[in-house]
């Protein structure tokens, strides 16, 4: 017991360094996903038949293939084939970003469809182009509505980032396994890793809830319209 605690204590700085990498992966992936998700949701709602078809195929690929398979496919397969020399960190960030992008596209699409149709009409009637109406009227409301689902997506991506260890990115999980395999303190070390993941999830979800309250439209109840 004494030994277990001291191993945890000694290795904590090393493990916490991994949490910076984990945080980096999550932040990069979430913003890449946000970018992909916004464009795709607009395409899924307002695009023509061909655009919608292509985007739907994208969604199904990233929904249907496990993240681990995608990681190996991109890291050892696709990037090597294309002659790209991406680090494990970059690969994990890109793969998770593209995956959450597919899910975020669906979240945003649902949010757009739940907005009252008349507002888009009103924007058009004022002479705004479709793109102006989407930017000034649809997106600001759609993003507000999406925050609860987005925080769900955050916790999923945070946990999926642990898969980065399979291609050797030195994040929390990889470092924990490295220390555990040398000290044999599996129980205490994995509990520590679990606590770090839990705290990161908790902090992010609380932060997003604060954001949701901050951007709330006055006069509206917190859950749904009217």
């Amino acid at each position: 017991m004494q030994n277990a605690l001291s191993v945890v204590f000694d290795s904590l700085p090393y493990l916490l360094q991994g949490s910076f990498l984990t945080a980096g992966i999550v932040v990069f992936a979430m913003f890449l996903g946000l970018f992909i998700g916004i464009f795709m949701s607009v395409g899924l709602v307002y695009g023509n038949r061909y655009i919608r078809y292509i985007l739907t195929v994208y969604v199904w690929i990233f929904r249907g293939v496990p993240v681990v398979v995608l990681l190996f496919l991109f890291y050892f397969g696709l990037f090597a084939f294309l002659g790209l020399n991406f680090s494990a960190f970059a690969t994990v960030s890109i793969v998770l970003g593209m995956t959450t992008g597919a899910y975020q596209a669906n979240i945003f699409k649902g949010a757009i469809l739940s907005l009252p149709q008349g507002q888009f009409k009103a924007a058009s009637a004022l002479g705004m182009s479709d793109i102006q109406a989407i930017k000034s009227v649809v997106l600001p409301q759609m993003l507000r509505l999406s925050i609860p689902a987005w925080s769900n997506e955050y916790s999923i991506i945070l946990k999926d980032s642990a898969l980065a260890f399979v291609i050797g990115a030195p994040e929390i999980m990889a470092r924990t396994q490295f220390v555990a395999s040398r000290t044999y303190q599996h129980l205490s070390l994995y509990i520590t890793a679990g606590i770090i993941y839990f705290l990161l999830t908790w902090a992010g979800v609380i932060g997003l809830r604060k954001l949701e309250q901050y951007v709330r439209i006055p006069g509206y109840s917190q859950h749904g319209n009217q």
Partner: protein
Amino acid sequence: MMTDKKPILRVTNITKSFGDITILKSVSIELAKGDIKILIGPSGGGKSTLLQCINCLVLPDSGEIELDNKRIHFTRKQDIYRLRQQVGMIFQDFNLFDHLTALDNITVALRKVKKMSKKEAEKRARLELKQVGLDDKEDLYPAQLSGGQKQRVAIARALAMDPKILLLDEPTSALDPTLIGEVISVIKELAIKGMTMIMATHQISLIHNLADEILFMEDGRIVEQGPPGALLAAGNTSKSQGFCDLLDKLSEVEE
């Protein structure tokens, strides 16, 4: 009486179908500056679709729209955007932008479409809010306004764009009876100032007091049209007369 004036808007033989159902069957309207035409008739008759065709929110299948003698090409986006900037629209359910204050509901199009600076746009928006009696409400969001106030903001928003024509699609139908008065008085003020309007309404006081001409729509056609004095004269057997009698009776029941 108005026939000697040159029309600013000419809608000719507009037809519109949704699937197998034909909503508009070759409808034509001419509008001169200052004209107020009022559309009445049973619901499903095509009033709303006609109004939305006039500013191309719904694209007509065939027919022509001319604004100031310039034909609008339905396939040219630039033509359509230009048309909409000159033809304002008021909706039955207001359609304010829920995430913006009363003031920003007005400034957003001024800035994006008319490319005004923030300062200019706000100055103009405050002027318009004052016109509809809401200068003290500029910081409130739509959810914090009553129905009548929302519709007045919507009117201010449309007027800020300096439209030549205003289309009103049952502007008082979604309102509580106690809130109708404030919107009616704003619309009457517009009429006094000489605003050119086409309005679908079942508000009997608007029909009687404002209409230069009543257009009775049924089954996608204008089946009757004429000045209210002629159509609604006592003893007349016109459809419009029958319809307005019915509206009169209904409003008596309400009171």
